């Protein structure tokens, strides 16, 4: 059982309260997106789950264990991809497997499989700078997926992509999530993206960040059979989708307005 639990988590940076008190429980194999105004601390939440940052109060648990540092059970996809520019596509994907001491022949098979799923066959020997942004991000996702992690942490993974590529990647991620469900924590400022991808969407307040409300998307998705439609625009046309999107927009707008007054 791989759950992520934020238990009364607060984080203070140099006497600035970034996060006040976050309570959030991501269930096993559930896809939760966090949306919020910029600077609200959503990335900090993800970093604390990854073990790259630590709470000033409260604790973050993955499964039953308190997060004490990074680990390959929790794969991270960064906004800026963070591929190693001096390693080929193959070696980038191989890096985590070697750290886990996976035998060579098994590594080869797993890398071939994940590159196939991510449509990267034939690019094994390419270097990141030779690839488009969308392909680089597919490599970054492959690098995370190949470890078969119980938990996937994604920090605005599509933020640096152009609109068309982003849509394709979102569809790809939905496909992956249905075939091979994981516990996912997904940070974004894109409301449509959150509604399209997530089972639940957590809305954060502006700084100091708290969880303002949590919207259940999954029940609507299942009731309205969103998954029968493969294209994102067909889903986005549905009244149920528009309704959820507008509700989240409104909630975020309130936060924006507070900011300016």
């Amino acid at each position, binding site marked *: 059982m791989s759950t992520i639990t934020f238990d009364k988590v607060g984080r203070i940076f140099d006497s600035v309260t970034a996060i006040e008190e976050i309570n959030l429980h991501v269930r096993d194999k559930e896809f939760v997106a966090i949306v919020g105004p910029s600077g609200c601390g959503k990335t900090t939440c993800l970093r604390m789950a990854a073990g790259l940052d630590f709470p000033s109060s409260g604790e973050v648990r993955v499964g039953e264990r308190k997060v004490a540092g990074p680990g390959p059970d929790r794969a991270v996809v960064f906004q800026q991809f963070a591929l190693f*520019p*001096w390693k080929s596509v193959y070696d980038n994907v191989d*890096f985590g497997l*070697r750290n886990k001491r996976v035998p060579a022949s098994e590594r080869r098979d797993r890398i071939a499989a994940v590159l196939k799923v991510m449509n990267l066959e034939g690019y094994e020997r390419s*270097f990141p700078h030779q690839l488009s942004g969308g392909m680089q991000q597919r490599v970054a996702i492959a690098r995370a997926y190949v*470890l078969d992690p119980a938990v996937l942490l994604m920090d605005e993974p599509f933020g640096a992509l152009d609109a068309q590529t982003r849509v394709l990647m979102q569809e790809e991620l939905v496909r992956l999530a249905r075939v091979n469900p994981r516990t996912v924590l997904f940070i974004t400022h894109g409301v449509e993206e959150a509604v399209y991808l997530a089972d639940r969407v957590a809305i954060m307040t502006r700084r100091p960040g708290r969880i303002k409300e949590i919207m259940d998307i999954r029940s609507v998705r299942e009731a309205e059979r969103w998954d029968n439609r493969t294209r994102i625009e067909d889903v986005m046309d549905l009244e149920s989708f528009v309704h959820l999107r507008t509700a989240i927009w409104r909630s975020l707008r309130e936060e924006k307005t507070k900011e300016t007054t």
Partner: protein
Amino acid sequence: MTPRPDGRPSRAEIWVLGAAGLATFFGLWAALSGFGFVSPRFLPSPAAVAMRGIFLLAHPFAGASLPVHVLSSLGRYGLGFLLGACVGVPLGLLMGWYRLLDDIVTPIFDALRFVAPIAWVPFAALWFGTGIGGPVMVIFAGAFPPCLINAYRGARFVDKKFLEAARTLGAGNLRIIVEVLLPASVPSIVAGLRVGAGLGWQSLVGAELIVASSGVGYMMVQGQSAVSTTTVLSGMVAIGIVGYLVDLVLREIQTATQRRRGLA
């Protein structure tokens, strides 16, 4: 030639300007010695220096021909530079990684930094003699600091996202140092090697002026004793050319490493 939109001179213009500068330099030199303003004994004409240089290519002076002196210098230089790089680069990387090591080494380093490589010559001669050890130590004193400082800077200012990515992918310290810190620092390390190579070469000839019984520097000192200004100047030209060639090789390496990452 039409001016470029950004107002900078074109490639061809730069070439012409450079050639004009060199022509003026050699013209003035030739004029000073040729028209008898300065005695050719103190300032021989460029042609005389070139002739002497060509003569020295095949005929021994101070025990060996010029190429043999150059090779002898290059041998010491290679050894000293290699030593400086092999100690400087790893130590710099580790200092960038371990705060503790940084805190221990930096004060020692800062204290010794302002002792010029040439200032090590007497000490080097006392400790390692005038054969190969002394000069090698002086070259080391020249090449080591830039190698260390640049490796240190490279490691210290590695983009954090690479280190974080490596840690979330389960890498241990050793693997991060070898596979992330080192390659991420390569551009800075290579820049350091270039500076170190230049300083090492300069220091070497300085060292050979005092210690050593062969090498370009030694040949020049012998030329000075024999009041053979052409020999001295030939040595200087040889130093310049070899130094330039060494830098050219390192510059190529630098470009190649950048190209591999799509930076050039």
